[in-house]
């Protein structure tokens, strides 16, 4: 056995440790490709070209692509919004100033740490929005609170009440998942939305 | 004689590899690294395979195939990576672009 065989074999646990300790799922996918390439090299050096071919074709090509599709479609936070709000946001010249966009930007910065991406799904009216939340089509909905409701919520000393110039009433984000509510409640800094959590089973509502 | 030529080719390819890969460690833009890396990797790999071809001239079809696929795929992968990584640097393209 030659000396270089040991050195090449030592590369395999190195790459595997890199893969295991990687927290970002997309980086981990790319490192999985590297691990596949190095594994093919090791198998070849150890005298199994057929295994190396299988590793390169199935393990690297097929598995990485399938995992990429799976990670992309599962690590997503689906937020239902109303069609009118969305078109309202798109009509503006500078989209950063609309409140909905601010809410979405805030959500994006919060969920970036959790490697989730925020996907907006638009519905035509509020009933469809509520129904989508109940049917588990979306993880949360974000709608304009009605004026009376918003006044009520603002009244007991929420800091947003000191800004009467923000004409549109604040949005209300309702989620049906406790974990998402906890994350948003502790980290979301946007003042344009209020958060509430609705328990799907009990249908009781907890408003913060 | 021909052994020394092949060793020279392999050594030159190794120098290309190290030179191009060392740019990965610098803090330049992705496109700069991509350019240096693809050029030096492709040229270095071709030089190494050519050196191997001088060592074993009997097996030329396979090594020629390796050189051809290396040039084609590496240039194509370089273009694809440049296209994919440059969209968030430039202004946003239209969705169908």
């Amino acid at each position, binding site marked *: 056995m030659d000396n*270089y065989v040991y050195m*090449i074999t030592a*590369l395999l646990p190195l790459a595997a440790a*890199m893969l295991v300790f990687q927290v970002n799922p*997309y*980086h981990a*996918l*790319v*490192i999985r*490709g*590297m691990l596949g*390439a*190095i594994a093919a*090299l090791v198998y*070849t*050096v150890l005298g199994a*070209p057929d295994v*190396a*071919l299988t590793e*390169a*074709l199935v393990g*690297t*090509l*097929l598995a*990485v*692509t399938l995992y*990429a599709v799976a990670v*992309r479609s599962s690590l997503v936070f689906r937020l239902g919004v109303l069609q009118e709000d969305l078109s309202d946001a798109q009509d503006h010249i500078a989209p950063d100033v609309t409140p909905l966009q601010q809410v979405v930007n805030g959500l994006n910065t919060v969920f970036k740490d959790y490697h989730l*991406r925020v*996907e907006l799904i638009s519905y035509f009216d509020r009933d469809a929005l509520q129904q989508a939340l109940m049917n588990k089509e979306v993880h949360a909905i974000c709608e304009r609170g009605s004026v009376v409701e918003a006044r009520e919520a603002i009244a007991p000393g929420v800091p947003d009440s000191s800004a009467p110039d923000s004409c549109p009433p604040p949005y209300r984000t309702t989620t049906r998942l406790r974990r998402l509510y906890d994350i948003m409640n502790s980290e979301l800094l946007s003042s344009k939305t209020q958060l509430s959590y609705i328990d799907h089973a009990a249908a009781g509502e907890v408003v913060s | 004689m021909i052994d020394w030529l092949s060793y020279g080719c392999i*050594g030159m390819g*190794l120098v290309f590899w*190290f030179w191009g*890969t*060392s740019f*990965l*460690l610098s803090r330049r833009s*992705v496109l700069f*690294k991509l350019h240096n*890396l*693809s050029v030096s*990797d492709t040229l270095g790999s071709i030089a*190494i*395979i050519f050196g*191997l071809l001088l060592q074993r001239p009997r097996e030329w079809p*396979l*090594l020629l195939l*390796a050189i051809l*696929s*290396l040039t084609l*795929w*590496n240039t*194509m*992968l370089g273009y*694809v*990576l440049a*296209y*994919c*990584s440059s*969209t968030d640097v430039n202004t946003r393209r239209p969705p169908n672009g």
Partner: protein
Amino acid sequence: MSFLNLALMAMIVALLIPLYEAWRDEDIWQTMLSLSSVSSKTAVMILLVSVLRDDWMVGVAGVIILSVGNAGFMLLAHILKRLGDS
């Protein structure tokens, strides 16, 4: 210790550079760059091992890996790009 052995050692050292770059993660595209570097380097190393041992089955495997393996990375690059767009 022949020259090809030494060259293989140098290649292993060269392979460590993109691995280190991928470990020091900053941007996903830099990781993709090091992935393409690693994959072409390993394929060339397989070819060198095949010449070193005069074993031609290994060479065939190396050439197939070299010519087919890159297609998956282009697919992965496009998926990652779609991810950044949305």
